[in-house]
């Protein structure tokens, strides 16, 4: 393969073709995952380091399983459990890990831009597994893949993302990726959590949730962190649920075939009603399942033939 791309930090500089390539290969990987022996030798001899400076068991598990299913060796680094990183610069930590002859880094970090720094400091292929509020590109890819499986295309889809847009790397990455692929994205939330500066050609920004959902093909609810109350962004959880919860009655405004997504983990009956999450419209479990195939595809595109 080899589209010349070395890192997946965000979608800056990515082409439609390169992304289509990843989504197509995800089909192949999905098929691998349906076999009795769910393993291919594609990454044999390659060492992948998951460098998680912020906890996320789900994302780390998904990446590590994806790497192992492709026969890569996996070095696991979790900042919390290690003597590395306390008081040490990000660069020093990465150089130490690099000394173990790592071929690629998968980075999760609480600071926006940390994955870019790791790419710079390590010189190795780097995949952003979520950095601060900046980007979570594999989440966006698996969301896009879920939409693709549902509707057969991304172009022209109307996708509405609802919630704490300000602090959401999922919202940023989805807006970047989907608008690049020709979808119409609407970002919606209370004004305190909605940077209007994110608006552009294919990205609308509105506080009006009714308008935002009208005619949508896809409605995505974002996780609301409890800290937003303390930060003074919201008066109360109950007021948020009253105004911005994604639920059945809201979905009546969307297209008949509209599906519901959530990047997880969910606060049931806060940002999304539990019954909707469990309904036939929900593709929340499919997202998790597709996540692994998409991550295998990303690893394949970035690492095969690069050793």
């Amino acid at each position, binding site marked *: 393969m080899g589209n010349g791309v070395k890192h997946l930090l965000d979608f800056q500089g990515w082409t439609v073709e390169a992304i289509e390539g990843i989504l197509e290969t995800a089909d192949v990987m999905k098929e691998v995952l349906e076999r009795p022996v769910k393993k291919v030798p594609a990454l044999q001899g390659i060492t992948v380091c998951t460098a998680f400076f912020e906890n996320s068991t789900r994302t780390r598990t998904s990446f590590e399983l994806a790497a192992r299913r492709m026969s890569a060796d996996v070095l696991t680094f979790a900042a919390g459990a290690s003597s590395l990183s306390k008081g040490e610069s990000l660069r020093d930590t990465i150089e130490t890990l690099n000394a173990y002859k790592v071929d690629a880094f998968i980075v999760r970090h609480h600071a*926006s831009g940390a994955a870019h720094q790791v790419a710079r400091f390590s010189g190795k292929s780097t995949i952003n597994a979520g950095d*601060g509020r*900046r*980007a979570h590109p594999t989440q966006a890819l698996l969301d896009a893949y879920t939409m693709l499986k549902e509707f057969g295309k991304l172009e022209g889809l109307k996708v509405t993302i609802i919630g704490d847009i300000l602090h959401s790397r999922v919202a940023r990455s989805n807006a970047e990726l989907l608008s690049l692929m020709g979808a119409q994205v609407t970002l919606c939330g209370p004004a305190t959590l909605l*940077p209007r500066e994110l608006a552009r050609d294919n990205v609308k920004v509105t506080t009006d949730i009714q308008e935002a959902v009208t005619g949508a093909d896809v409605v995505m609810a974002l996780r609301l962190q409890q800290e937003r109350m303390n930060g003074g962004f919201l008066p109360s959880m109950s007021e948020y649920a009253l105004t911005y919860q994604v639920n059945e009655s809201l979905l009546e405004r969307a297209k008949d075939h509209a599906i519901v997504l959530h990047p997880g983990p969910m606060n049931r009956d806060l940002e999304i009603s539990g019954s909707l999450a469990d309904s036939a419209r929900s593709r929340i479990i499919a997202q998790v399942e597709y996540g692994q195939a998409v991550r295998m595809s990303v690893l394949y595109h970035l690492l095969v033939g690069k050793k």
Partner: protein
Amino acid sequence: MLEIKNVKRVGSDQLESLFIAEGKIKGWNLSEAATETIDGKGATVAPALIELHAHLREPGQEQKEDLASGLAAAAAGGYGTVVSMPNTSPVVDEPGIVATLIQKAEKLGFARLKPAAALTRGQKGETLADLAALKEAGASMFTDDGRTNENANVLRRGMEYASGLGLLVSVHAEDATLRQDGVMNEGVVSHELGLPGNPAAAEAARVARDVEIALLTGARLHIQHLSTARALEIVRQGKKAGAPVTCEVCPHHLTLTDESLRGFDAMYKVAPPLRTQQDAEALLEGLLDGTVDCLATDHAPHTQAEKEKDLLEAPFGIPSIEVAFPLMYTRFVKTGKISLEKVLDLFTVGCAKVMNWETPSLEAGSVADVVLLDLDQARAVDPKTFKSKAKFSPWAGEELYGWPTLTLVAGKVAFQN
């Protein structure tokens, strides 16, 4: 008697000789015999620059910078005098610390040190430091820079008290409750990058408050490192209304914008943050129309390791004292945006006026603080050669004109290249 021959005065192509004796300018083109001669090789001669805002980190953070490295860096940047900020560890809020710093600096023979002292104990913004005793020990001004003065009444009392001593108070004007945890300018770029933003309004709101306090008290107030068009406009209006307010602007706010953060390099993390192109242009306008009184660097050295942390954790600050003049000269004088006379004024006379110091001059009788500037030959910024301990620079590799070749402080060589 020292003769500096083959130098040009600003605006002239004629090669002349400047004579210096006993730390003072003796005169031009004298017939007396010199005991020592320095060949200026056609450099332009000007009064040495004055820095009103440098972080020299001593005492307590000598791994970042100390008096020796910081004052040597200043001299290499063409500076004869440096006002150091008191946000050290411990804070410069005791007369003994001021006195020690001055004594140490005198022995070094680089740029002259005029330490600022904290306005409040521990720079906590709660109770005034012993301002009279600090002045007695040699403090040149009072500031809680590094911190913002949240309590308006404490600032008012501090300004009133300091004005009774004939010294000014300078402020890092930013409303901390609006700034929050912002690490860069709040705007399109911060929202795209997902980095916590610091809105321009945090500066404007605080400047407005402080200008009102200056009007109320009639006491002198100096506003540090102004970064936004709005705050500058408020200063402009305040000056018109008669507020005894002065302000400084830093070269990085004139030459860099928040777009620099797109590479996620913490080197560009500075407080107040790099703003937009419109802000930078407004600041330049402020230099030209006299709203801005002087240029200051806010030289803020850190270790490389600290700047290689993630953007939330890395400290604020850009080291710039060694490149300030060449940068301003190359970007703005050579491009015809501003005259050499004006830029030099902002680096010298403007600073002295803010501090109520003797006007820098090359006329006979003036203190022989002198700099020679090579305006003809370009040289790339090479942080490895910095005298500062901070060996990184946003302008690394950029070809600049106007490098200092010689700095004299009271007639003594503090830097020579």
